[in-house]
């Protein structure tokens, strides 16, 4: 152990001892590694997803027959106030962030993230936010509706502390997402491997970029709105008090900026995952990498500007509603381009119908239906007819469930082998998808027709003779199917974590992007060596060059290689020895098919 001298220029790692590993769960919970944090995000968001699903089932149980008195109105309103925030803020966004946090640094060939501790902090803020909301069930849960609009959420009309915990929990979780987004944006800007230019960046990472910037913009808006609401409630504020010259409408604006952005985050994350899954399983590059990336950026910019699309019936100046309609309709172009590119990607390929593919196709179909519905509500008079009825709520749920749940499960199926080296159960996954697909379509169809009959959102009961009995009965049954599918798939994921089939090598799908270059699961430093990236499909280039070399190489008969190398040990081993270029890469680590462990 000689101290480094001027002559010794090679960097040297100096340590005072070996870090003794703690219990696995302590390691996971305290590690600042982006993969550990990503896993915590995914696991927590899936837990909240199951909670949201159960709450949704309870809400539908109350609405199964007219004038039902199974669940008291107060309890119903509490579930009503927590279920949407659980689905969107505590499940959908963090699931997207977890997948991004785990996969995107691998995709861009980074060995870590820019601010690992900030990343870790973001998770704990989110968890504390979620726990804060649910802790209120110990005393009085919030009962002020989906987005806690004042004046209903002012201290006069909602004197209980449940609303405060809703405000605090949502704000904490959102603050966490903003921290995450700052880390994400810096990581994507500064830590891309050599050759990963913006134009070559994988599409999921593109979606992540847009999501990062979106969160940096919309997150503080919601935190500000919630802070003002809290000041109004407890510190004699008059931000939203009409009696004192405040504007309740301001909160509606701010909250809808955030929730419109959240809706787009869900869509973008699913769209990014689909844009990875379809090319991989169709064995074909995405039809137009540029067009997809450009569409993501366009959606990220235009989408939040259309927030007033939700507020057509509010006392707004006519010009504002027309502007919102313009932005909402402008979204037709990027969304249409995405759908076209996805279908064109399948066209001419050989689509391997694995569970991940089915989920991706299901997500496309469902989100397309939901976005088509949104298209009609963007037209102001149709909005006046259907906003705030179950019809438009169904359409929103289409995108949330199609994106966050079915799109999220598509991404889970796709990246599960990367995360734990096992496959997420295919048969059960497809069965769960069938349940969810039937459930959501039937539910939305029924709710659409009930909305046309005039059923408003958020009611704890409806009345006999209003013509919506049959719709609600079928919708409730469909909702149970949907919830059953979600729970089945979550159980499937939990089971497969330790008992799933071992994936064939480190790249079971023959993916095109760099995360498949790493081991499964990746070692803490991700890559021993990062290959030189020269296209949008570095892994494809590597496989091609290996194939060319293998074909060019004429083996002497006596010196034929043994049929297959020994099984790879489970602990991380160096993937490659050489660092210079893709041509010199070890074939086993590259194509992943060589080391099959059945």
């Amino acid at each position, binding site marked *: 152990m000689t101290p480094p001298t001027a002559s010794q220029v090679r960097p040297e790692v100096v340590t005072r001892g070996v870090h003794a590993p703690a219990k696995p769960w302590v390691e996971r919970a305290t590690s600042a590694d982006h993969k550990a944090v990503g896993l915590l995000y995914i696991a927590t968001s899936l837990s909240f997803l199951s909670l949201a699903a159960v709450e949704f089932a309870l809400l539908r149980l109350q609405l199964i027959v007219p004038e039902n008195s199974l669940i008291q109105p*107060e309890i119903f309103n509490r579930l009503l106030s927590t279920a949407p925030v659980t689905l969107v803020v505590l499940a959908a966004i963090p699931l997207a962030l977890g997948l991004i946090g785990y996969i995107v640094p691998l995709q861009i060939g980074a060995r870590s993230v820019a601010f690992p501790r900030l990343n870790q902090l973001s998770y704990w803020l989110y968890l504390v936010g979620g726990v804060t909301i649910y802790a209120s069930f110990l005393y009085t849960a919030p009962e002020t509706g989906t987005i806690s609009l004042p004046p209903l959420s002012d201290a006069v009309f909602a004197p209980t502390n449940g609303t405060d915990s809703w405000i605090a929990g949502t704000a904490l979780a959102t603050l966490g997402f903003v921290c995450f987004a700052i880390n994400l944006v810096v990581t994507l800007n500064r830590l891309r491997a050599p050759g990963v230019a913006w134009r070559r960046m994988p599409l999921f990472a593109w979606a992540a970029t847009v999501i990062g910037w979106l969160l940096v913009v919309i997150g503080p808006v919601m935190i500000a709105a919630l802070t003002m609401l809290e000041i109004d409630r407890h510190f004699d504020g008059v931000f939203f008090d009409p009696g004192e010259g405040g504007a309740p409408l301001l909160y509606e604006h701010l909250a809808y900026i955030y929730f419109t952005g959240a809706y787009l985050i869900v869509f973008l994350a699913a769209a990014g995952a689909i844009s990875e899954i379809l090319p991989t399983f169709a064995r074909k590059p995405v039809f137009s990498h540029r067009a997809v990336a450009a569409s993501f950026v366009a959606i990220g910019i235009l989408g939040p500007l259309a927030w007033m699309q939700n507020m057509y019936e509010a006392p707004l100046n006519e010009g504002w509603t027309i502007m919102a309609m313009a932005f909402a*309709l402008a979204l037709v172009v990027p969304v249409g*381009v995405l759908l076209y590119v996805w279908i064109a990607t399948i066209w001419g390929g*050989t689509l391997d119908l694995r569970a991940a593919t089915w989920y991706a196709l299901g997500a496309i179909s469902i989100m397309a239906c939901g976005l088509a519905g949104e298209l*009609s509500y963007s037209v102001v*008079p149709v909005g*006046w007819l259907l906003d705030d009825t179950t019809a438009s709520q169904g359409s929103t749920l289409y995108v949330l469930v199609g994106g966050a749940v079915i799109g999220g499960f598509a991404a889970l199926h796709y990246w599960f082998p990367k995360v734990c080296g096992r496959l997420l159960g295919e048969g059960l996954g497809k069965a769960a998808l069938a349940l969810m697909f039937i459930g959501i379509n039937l539910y939305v169809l029924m709710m659409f027709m009930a909305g046309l009959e005039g059923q408003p959102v958020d009611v704890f009961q409806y009345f006999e003779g209003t013509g919506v009995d049959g719709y609600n009965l079928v919708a409730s049954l469909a909702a149970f199917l949907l919830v059953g599918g979600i729970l089945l798939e979550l159980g499937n994921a939990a089971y497969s974590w330790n008992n799933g089939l071992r994936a064939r090598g480190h790249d079971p799908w023959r993916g095109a992007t760099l995360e498949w270059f790493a081991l499964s699961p990746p070692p803490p430093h991700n890559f021993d060596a990062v290959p030189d990236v020269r296209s949008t499909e570095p892994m494809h280039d590597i496989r091609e060059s290996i194939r060319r070399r293998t074909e060019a190489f004429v083996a002497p008969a006596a010196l034929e290689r043994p049929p297959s190398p020994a099984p790879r040990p489970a602990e991380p081993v160096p993937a490659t020895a050489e660092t210079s270029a893709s041509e010199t890469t070890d074939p086993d680590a590259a194509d992943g098919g060589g080391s099959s462990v059945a």
Partner: protein
Amino acid sequence: MLALAWAGPAHAISIAPEEAHSPNADAINTSYWVMIVVVIAVIVVVNAALIAAVLRFRERRGREPSRFAAGRGALRPVVGSLSVLALVIFVYGVIMTEDVREIEPSGPNGLGAAQTAQVGIKGLPASAAIEGSESATGEEPVTGAEPTETSPLQIDAIAQQWLWRFEYPGGQPGQRTFSYGELVVPVDTTVILDLTSTDVLHSWWVPALGGQVQAASGDVTRTWFKADEEGRYAGRSTAFSGTGYPVMRSWVRVVSVPEYLDYVEQLTADLREAQGIVQRRQAEEATPEAATESEGAE
């Protein structure tokens, strides 16, 4: 019974909105029908293309993927046609929005038809309506000695948890004739509703007579309708307002002009009588109290 059994399933596949009985609701329904056709077309095209692609290009033995990607400008026709679609819908949307907002004059069978033609109020945005309500439109019906002589009929609808209060024109401010829950208006008459709320956010929505409008406290929102047929139309609030939200419903009873005049006259008389009773009772209650107080003083 048989008819009912048949009506059930037939009813269950309806994607028609409630029948319109007012020009603005009519325009809303028209735009709904146009857009639902577009929506169904989009859904069918996307899903059909998806299914066709999957059926045709699913993995089969011996098939090689053709690794092509879009060349430069390959998506221009797609972007162009989508832009045209968006633009056409936008223009249509703007036209229909104007159509719904534009307040029509009362018809020949309506209340005060003779005066209607001169008034002809255009649809005003909410903020302008509040400013304009004092000078241009608001005061005339309110302060007019004979409300029947003026048109359109302007009614204040005041929402509270969980009830609507409708104040009819005529009478002094604070002493106007009012009703709760059910609004009675004459047929073929333009009715302008000025909505406000005394507490939380509510919304006014009678599907047969137009679209949803929020009623917020500290703000006045204006909407209108002109019912073409006598009848009773149900409405409900679509803004979550707490425990009693499902019962936050409203009804609009459309009657003939003489019936309306009788109704208002009767309502005013009833209210006067009721107020008289209340005042008398208060006076009666006040007197013994005053007596006991004076006794106590002694």
